[in-house]
């Protein structure tokens, strides 16, 4: 799905000066019980212009703190943060003009109508009266707010409110849009809609940086992902790259009684990309270096031995496996990960 786009952004990330966000050695600690608590312990990041970048990590990993520093809400203790080409520490006011922010709590004014919210937001960004009205109409169309934009926000459903809040974040056409857990509490349909809208924004040149603790959000929506745990980036890359670093499992179900399965398992194990193969009931379970290598060799061998294959299932590593490998813990405490199972036949 994102193979082509990922290649493109990877290329872009390498050309200097095109970074929308550049973070080096970012540190932040807060006073807590029994001394200071280190929320960020030296983070380095580079987000290319025009990509969707995901911060993935469990609650308390430091994602929100990092986002708050990038959006001028918090000051860093140490490190350099450059957003849209400007240093956040020394020029927060200039950074604010170039970025949009959709916080975890939303931030729409619930006693005003959606349209009033949009117009005020535009005016606060220094847009003129007519310009703001036009822009508000444009956003109402773009995010499909028309049926309710003249109602008081208090009466909105969760999905309606979230759409308005995204609109508020982009009234002034920011270069970089930051979203903190944008799909938290949304139903699957609203979630899919929001993903589409963020992709469209990306396609018109906006850089999108979001935090999430949903594996599928990081995996399917983000062009690149930084896995954050305990105040550090533990892994970084495109979701495909990250998953490709870890072994994948293939389960092969041959027609019963057709061949000498133990011998075939031994032979499979000798293939270069195969880490191991074993029999499990009537199936053969093979562990591959990665999901993208070694499949062809397995099928060639099975065909050569005359094995009639009834079914094959591939279990690709998920970003949770990546997280598990890097931190020794599972991310599943907070997320409800989809299985990455694909049935090949």
């Amino acid at each position, binding site marked *: 799905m994102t193979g082509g786009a990922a290649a493109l952004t990877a290329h872009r990330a390498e050309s200097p000066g095109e970074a929308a966000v550049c973070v080096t050695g970012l540190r932040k600690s807060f006073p807590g019980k029994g001394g200071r608590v280190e929320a960020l312990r030296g983070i380095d990041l580079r987000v290319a212009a025009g990509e969707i970048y995901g911060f993935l990590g469990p609650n308390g990993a430091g994602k929100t703190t990092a986002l*708050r520093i990038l959006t001028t809400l918090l000051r860093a203790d140490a490190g350099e943060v450059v957003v849209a080409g400007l240093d956040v520490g020394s020029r927060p006011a200039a950074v604010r*003009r170039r*970025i949009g922010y959709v*916080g975890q709590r*939303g931030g729409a004014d619930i*006693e005003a109508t959606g349209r009033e919210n949009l117009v*005020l937001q535009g005016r606060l960004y220094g847009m003129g009266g007519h310009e703001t009205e036009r822009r508000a109409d444009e956003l109402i169309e773009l995010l499909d707010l028309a049926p309710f934009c003249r109602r008081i926000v208090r009466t909105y459903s969760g999905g309606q409110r979230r759409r308005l809040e995204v609109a508020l974040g982009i009234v002034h056409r920011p270069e970089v849009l930051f979203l903190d857990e944008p799909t938290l509490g949304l139903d699957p349909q609203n979630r899919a809609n929001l993903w589409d809208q963020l992709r469209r924004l990306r396609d018109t040149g906006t850089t999108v940086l979001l935090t999430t603790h949903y594996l599928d959000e990081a995996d399917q929506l983000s062009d690149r992902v930084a896995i954050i745990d305990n105040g550090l980036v533990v892994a970084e890359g495109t979701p495909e790259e990250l998953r490709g670093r870890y072994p994948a499992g293939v389960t092969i179900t041959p027609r019963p009684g057709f061949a000498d399965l133990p011998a075939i398992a031994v032979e499979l194990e000798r293939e270069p990309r195969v880490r191991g193969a074993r029999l499990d009931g009537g199936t053969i379970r093979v562990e591959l270096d990665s999901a993208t290598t070694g499949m062809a060799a397995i099928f060639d061998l099975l065909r050569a031995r005359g094995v009639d294959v009834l079914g094959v299932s591939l279990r690709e590593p998920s970003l949770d496996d990546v997280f598990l490998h890097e931190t020794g813990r599972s991310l599943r405490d907070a997320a409800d990960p989809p299985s990455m199972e694909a049935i090949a036949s």
Partner: protein
Amino acid sequence: MNFLLQTALLARRRILETLRQPIWVFMGMSVPLLYLALFAPLLKPLAGGPGFPGGSVLDVFVPGILALMAFGSGMGAGWIVIGELESGVIERLRVTPASRLALVLGTVVRDVLMFVVPAAVVLVVATFFGFHAHWDGLLVLLGLLALLTAACSAGSAALGITLKQIGSLAAVVTGLQLPLTLLAGVLLPLSLGPGWLQGLAHVNPMYYAVNAARELASGTLASATVAAGFGVMGAAALLAVWWSTHAYRRAME
């Protein structure tokens, strides 16, 4: 100028918010009128006695009621701010380039209006109960007490941002309310009390506002008491606005 425009836009937002909840406008108006109708008769027998020179007790009582209204109109700001911290409004506004001072003053302007308009109504009603209105003095009085509202509004907002919890804010504000209003002689003049009480009142900024308000209501515009009232209230308002702006600047720390 950008800052003035932003203040106007943010004040408009607040005013709309208030007008959409007319129950608050109604309550803001009815409490002082109830004081006039129910409390003033209690004071009637004191007319001409100590602390109540002149003809009507209302001449002393009305400026105090207005000061109480000014205090109350401002002190609600903290509750709103905490609600907006929770709903993320403050965070959203802080990421916009809007002036932090404008964020504070938007609410202050609304609160001042929410004091001045009902106060004018109370003054008109009070004249029917026998209050002697010196309109030039009363105009200046409204200006003076608007400063008190501004100080309370900005101070309450700063407290709200700092404390972040309704419970703590309520404890602090109600804890302050009694000493501040009582030691200002809001309902009963402090001249009725013993010397130590009158001495203690001098550390209360509101005391100067109430004294000046009584003098202005009696028609005296140029006096040391009035000057002291404006001096103390002006300083309190400036200090509170500075504190609140500072709090907005670093609301998440």
